[in-house]
């Protein structure tokens, strides 16, 4: 429903700005608190939740099976071969970590830009980041062949007198991703402390009071604490912003430092970062749309959020499209025979279909989001989020597989075919991600209550230094 033909009395539309409201009108501090905390503190877990946990848990069980067999048999059960030694593991790693980036973008960058609408969605976007990083981090580990020796990646005084090679982007990656995981968890937890205090105080059960009391570390809402808390949040946001940009840049350097045609380009860092944010926003929508419906959170996660996320996706999608066209242009302009062949092979080679899937999902169809009518249609936006996530997965597939299968020497060309273990591992991480997310939604406050309270009109002071403000009247 576009604003123009919306009924004038639609309460979700602000009459002054004609924009959809960020929070439905008529809420009080207490009502937003109850709206969020009831989901966690209820003694009646909805049946739908149990059902979803069962399904997601079974799919995660598939991951367990696949990984167990992998540890017993080795990476030979996967489709990776020479020349495609990277395969699904790296595709999934890059895809998952990219998804995580939108969480940090929403919580950090939009905080710095004072985008108030982010407040309702930042907590679960951050949770999404953490669970996506969990899924992502698993792939390089299980790809190593001997994952129990994964700690060799870190600098430590070993009896072999061995130290990591700090000139390699693969070692940079270890520091980038481990820092990213740590800072994301810390940011998420610190942001949650006041809400955990609320849950502690509202919980009726002894166990709940103890559990949330432990997590809330004795938060009592002192204004001195709030001032420090606000500073720390702002600092963490300021630190997470360059961090998130660096993480995907470093990941893209894993590719672009190699001399492979199609990889060895300087556009990779910005284009990877834009793609990461693009797919991440798509995943936020994939999660937010069913959740707001299932838990009746339409008052707090409004059409405005969906509309805004659509705009961000459109913008980042256009950056990604620019990246693709630059690649095509440079393959011609560089006058490099191998670059030219790489692009031809990408488009019309044996796996050319995957390139066109990517173009359709990432560039062609998302153009529909120019239409406001499309962006405010919840069902269509859900569909679009799935399309974009598919497209972004194929982007990584195209980058990894088409370049590796056919490099400089035709005698070393090969092909790539994923095995059932590859598919089970990938689908299994989707299950694990959903499973962790469901636990989060049930046991932790998924919408930051303290930040919602700040957004309500009654949170504004009615006078400053004894002088009433214009709209005063308390």
């Amino acid at each position, binding site marked *: 429903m576009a604003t123009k033909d919306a009924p004038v009395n639609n309460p979700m539309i602000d009459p002054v700005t004609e924009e959809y409201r960020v929070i439905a009108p008529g809420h009080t501090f207490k009502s937003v608190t109850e709206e969020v905390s009831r989901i966690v503190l209820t003694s009646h877990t909805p049946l739908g939740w149990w059902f979803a946990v069962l399904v997601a848990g079974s799919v995660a069980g598939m991951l367990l099976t696949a990984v167990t067999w992998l540890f017993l048999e080795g990476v030979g059960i996967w489709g990776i071969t020479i020349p495609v030694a990277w395969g699904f593991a790296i595709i999934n790693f890059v895809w998952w970590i990219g998804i995580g980036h939108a969480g940090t973008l929403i919580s950090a960058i939009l905080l710095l830009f004072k985008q108030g609408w982010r407040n309702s969605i930042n907590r679960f976007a951050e949770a999404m980041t953490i669970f996506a990083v969990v899924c992502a981090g698993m792939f390089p580990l299980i790809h190593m062949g001997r994952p129990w020796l994964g700690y060799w990646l870190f600098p430590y005084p070993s009896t072999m007198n061995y130290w990591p090679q700090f000139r390699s982007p693969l070692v940079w990656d270890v520091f980038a991703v481990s820092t990213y995981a740590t800072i994301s968890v810390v940011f998420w937890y610190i942001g949650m402390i006041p809400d955990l205090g609320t849950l502690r105080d509202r919980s009726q059960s002894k166990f709940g009071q103890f559990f949330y009391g432990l997590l809330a570390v*004795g938060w009592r809402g002192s*204004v001195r604490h709030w001032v420090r808390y606000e500073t720390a949040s702002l600092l963490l946001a300021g630190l997470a912003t360059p*961090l998130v940009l660096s993480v995907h840049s470093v990941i893209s350097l894993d590719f672009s430092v190699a001399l492979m045609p199609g990889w060895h380009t300087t556009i990779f860092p910005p284009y990877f970062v834009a793609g990461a944010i693009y797919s991440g926003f798509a995943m936020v929508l994939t999660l937010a749309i069913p959740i707001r419906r299932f838990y009746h959170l339409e008052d707090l996660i409004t059409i405005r959020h969906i509309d805004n996320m659509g705009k961000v996706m459109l913008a980042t999608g256009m950056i990604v499209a620019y990246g693709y066209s630059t690649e095509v242009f440079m393959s011609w302009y560089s006058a490099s025979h191998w670059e030219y062949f790489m692009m031809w092979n990408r488009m019309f080679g044996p796996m050319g279909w995957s390139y066109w899937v990517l173009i359709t999902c990432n560039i062609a169809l998302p153009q529909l989001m120019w239409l406001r009518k499309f962006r405010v249609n919840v069902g269509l936006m859900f569909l679009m989020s799935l399309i974009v996530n598919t497209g972004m997965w194929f982007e990584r597939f195209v980058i990894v597989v088409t370049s590796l299968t056919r490099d400089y020497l035709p005698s070393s060309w090969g092909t790539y075919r994923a095995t059932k273990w590859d598919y089970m591992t990938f689908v299994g991480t989707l299950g694990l991600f959903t499973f962790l997310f469901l636990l989060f939604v049930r046991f932790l406050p998924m919408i930051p209550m303290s930040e919602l309270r700040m957004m309500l009109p009654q949170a504004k002071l009615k006078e400053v230094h004894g002088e009433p403000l214009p709209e005063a009247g308390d």
Partner: protein
Amino acid sequence: MPLPEGTYGLMAEFETPTQLVRAAKAAHGAGYRRMDCYTPYPVEEAAEAIGFHRDEVSLVCLIGGLLGLAAMFTLETWISVWAYPVNVAGRPYYSWPAFVVPAYEWTILWAGLSAAFGMLALCGLPKPYHPVFNAPNFRSGATTDKFFLCLEATDPKFDTTETRSFLEKQAPLSVVEVEY
């Protein structure tokens, strides 16, 4: 140290942030210094009203970040130049541009951890027990929708009857005595 006993302070409950800030200003103006406000979301004006202007979180964060930077850059240099020098196609052992990336990540890691845990430490958290939780109306309001001002008994100006009548004048919902 023996456990403190008796009165921790007097706690006034307010309906709106405006009333709280007004009362906090009045208390500060009347000479009270040992006091605190408790709110369900950050009310910066209340912090200013009770004379709390500066927090040291940024400084802790800066020091942490610089330490992280120095630690990683030193480690990389030591490893690549002295502990495990590897000659890669004649490139210098001290290839500092390559060392920038992990050093950058550790700057952020240490700065972030310092900001987060420094904030908790400066707040004196974790502190599961605090006398204000003994106020009967505190837990249902302070983290949900009510605003509290607590004038503490350790303040030299504190006097149970006088302070109570002072708080009563600030139009609170209630004034209760908080025990240790």
